[in-house]
């Protein structure tokens, strides 16, 4: 009998084409936006993951807020840290902003990244042309610079910038290298920056003291021990205060980014869920109208022997079919949107099972929740009243 009742439900959906379509559209939009946001969130997370893990695992990142007296690390501090057990290199960072002039082209307010030679030793894929910073550059506080890929394009077009002289904040710098593009989506991209020796940035360009360092250690050494030793050293450096710096390892960073993106995704999906709720209300509205419209039919079916359960199923199945159709189309729509988004913003796109299962579950739940009240109303109609209603 279920088959026949199913057919009745489908017949009614098909008969009220426009109404069914609009109601389905409500669900499509709700499910579609949830799916799109969740897939994009997944894509962003995995992009961040692959980028971070590409940076290598044998690294600790220290970021320093500093005290009013000591805002960053001195050269001696850095040398001291380099002598710690298992530590192979220390790569400090400073930052400044300055104008960049080459020939007739000038750019204001360009980000200047102060780095050390160890920054280039750690990752050889950074360079596209020329050389990285050398030990000598740091010792001499040389006025040498490397250009980010976007900046190279803007100032030099397709020519190689290596060997050219540019002016940073009124001082002449020799361009010794060009950086490779870091790709579209990265939170630490240097594409629009100029890289100079960190002490040059600090002194000559009015940059910050060293407020961030990467500490590299030998592969396989115990992370927690290195971290603890680093912490002790930094606490000494900052006169016993251990609340003015923080040490991350790669995993911490990964976890933090994941938490952030997961929270964002959940938040956005929650907002999208509101549109699914609105879609559900649309279903309820349509079903209630349908029940009123078909009061007479319900009465007749009851007089012919339809049990309350049969009537209820007929209406409930109708609501669930509409939701399932909406859910199915919504998944397709959401997938397409997420794909378009991934092309536009430039992160990975992968269909994962979880959002799809969730969306299907959600749409069935919406159908049941918002379909049950109208279906109950129909099944509880008194057949005499229903028959009299013409």
């Amino acid at each position, binding site marked *: 009998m279920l088959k026949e009742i199913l057919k009745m439900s489908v017949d009614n959906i098909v008969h009220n084409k426009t109404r069914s379509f609009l109601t389905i559209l409500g669900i499509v939009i709700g499910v579609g936006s949830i799916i799109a946001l969740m897939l994009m969130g997944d894509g962003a997370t995995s992009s961040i993951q692959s980028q971070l893990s590409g940076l290598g695992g044998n690294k600790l990142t220290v970021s320093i807020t500093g005290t009013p007296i000591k805002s960053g690390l001195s050269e001696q501090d850095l040398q001291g840290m380099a002598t710690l057990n298992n530590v192979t290199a220390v790569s400090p960072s400073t930052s400044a902003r300055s104008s960049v002039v080459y020939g007739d082209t000038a750019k204001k307010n360009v980000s200047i990244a102060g780095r050390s030679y160890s920054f280039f030793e750690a990752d050889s894929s950074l360079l596209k042309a020329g050389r990285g910073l050398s030990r000598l550059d740091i010792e001499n506080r040389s006025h040498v610079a490397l250009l980010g890929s976007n900046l190279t394009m803007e100032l030099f077009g397709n020519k190689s910038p290596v060997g050219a002289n540019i002016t940073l904040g009124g001082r002449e710098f020799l361009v010794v290298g060009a950086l490779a593009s870091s790709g579209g989506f990265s939170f630490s991209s240097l594409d629009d920056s100029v890289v100079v020796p960190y002490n040059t940035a600090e002194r000559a360009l009015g940059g910050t003291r060293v407020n961030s360092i990467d500490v590299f250690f030998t592969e396989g050494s115990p992370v927690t021990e290195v971290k603890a030793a680093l912490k002790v050293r930094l606490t000494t450096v900052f006169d016993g205060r251990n609340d003015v710096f923080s040490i991350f390892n790669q995993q911490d960073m990964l976890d933090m980014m994941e938490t952030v993106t997961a929270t964002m995704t959940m938040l956005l999906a929650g907002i999208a869920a509101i549109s699914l709720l609105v879609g559900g209300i649309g279903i309820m509205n349509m079903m209630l109208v349908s029940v009123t419209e078909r009061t007479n039919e319900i009465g007749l*079916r009851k*007089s*012919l*022997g339809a049990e*309350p359960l049969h009537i209820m199923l007929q209406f409930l199945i109708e609501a669930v079919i509409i939701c399932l159709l909406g859910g199915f189309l919504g998944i397709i729509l959401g997938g397409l949107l997420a794909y378009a988004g991934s092309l536009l913003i430039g992160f990975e796109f992968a269909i994962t099972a979880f959002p799809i299962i969730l969306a299907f579950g959600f749409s069935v739940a919406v159908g049941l929740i918002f379909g049950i009240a109208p279906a109950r109303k129909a099944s509880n109609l008194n057949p005499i009243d229903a028959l009299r209603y*013409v």
Partner: protein
Amino acid sequence: MSALLSLANICKSYAMGEEEYEVLHDVNLTIERGELISIFGPSGSGKTTLMNIIGCLDVPTSGEYVLDGTLVADLEPRQLARIRNKKIGFVFQNFQLLPRLNTFSNVELPLIYSGLKAAERRQRVLGMLELVGLSHKAESFPNQLSGGQQQRVAIARSMVTEPSIILADEPTGALDQKTGQQIMDLFRQFNQAGRTIIMITHDPIVAAIAKRTVRILDGRLSEEGGAINAKRDTEDVCR
């Protein structure tokens, strides 16, 4: 063999705001198998309420109704639906066919609720359509049929489950006299084949066709020619 149905001291009243409105008052009626009986009365006399009670669409306020050996009181809506499906066939004044279904599907409807298999349904429906002479209209929709044809579809639908009783409420009310006559002939023919038919009508010509007529007036029942329930003052019968 016991009577097909018996109504004893049936009362039915509705609450109309503050006031209680009594529609049926101490109705007693026994109908045997194979009868062709008409319940005859003007509109507002309570005959439709009586039909609803006989048809298990409604339950009496008080009194006892036994149908085919079953006491129809305190039955669940589900059980009432079963009884309507198996034992009662309704024929309505305005046919009450579902406009979206064709003749075949309309007649098939009660069999779906009986839970019969498709092949068995098909066989029964086609047999029934042949009996009412509409085999050639099986694929037609109600709006493609004349009033008389629609009523014949409705009759086929009422009989397809082979119920104990056919309950017809003003079956010719929406038809012209000639077509009405054909419908009445159909009923008579089925009655001769052994069916119990109860017709509710305000039309004396229709009532006259029945072998037995009971009159209903202001909720009180009387056999044709008898006095209107004057045996006793029955204030205490209805609670």
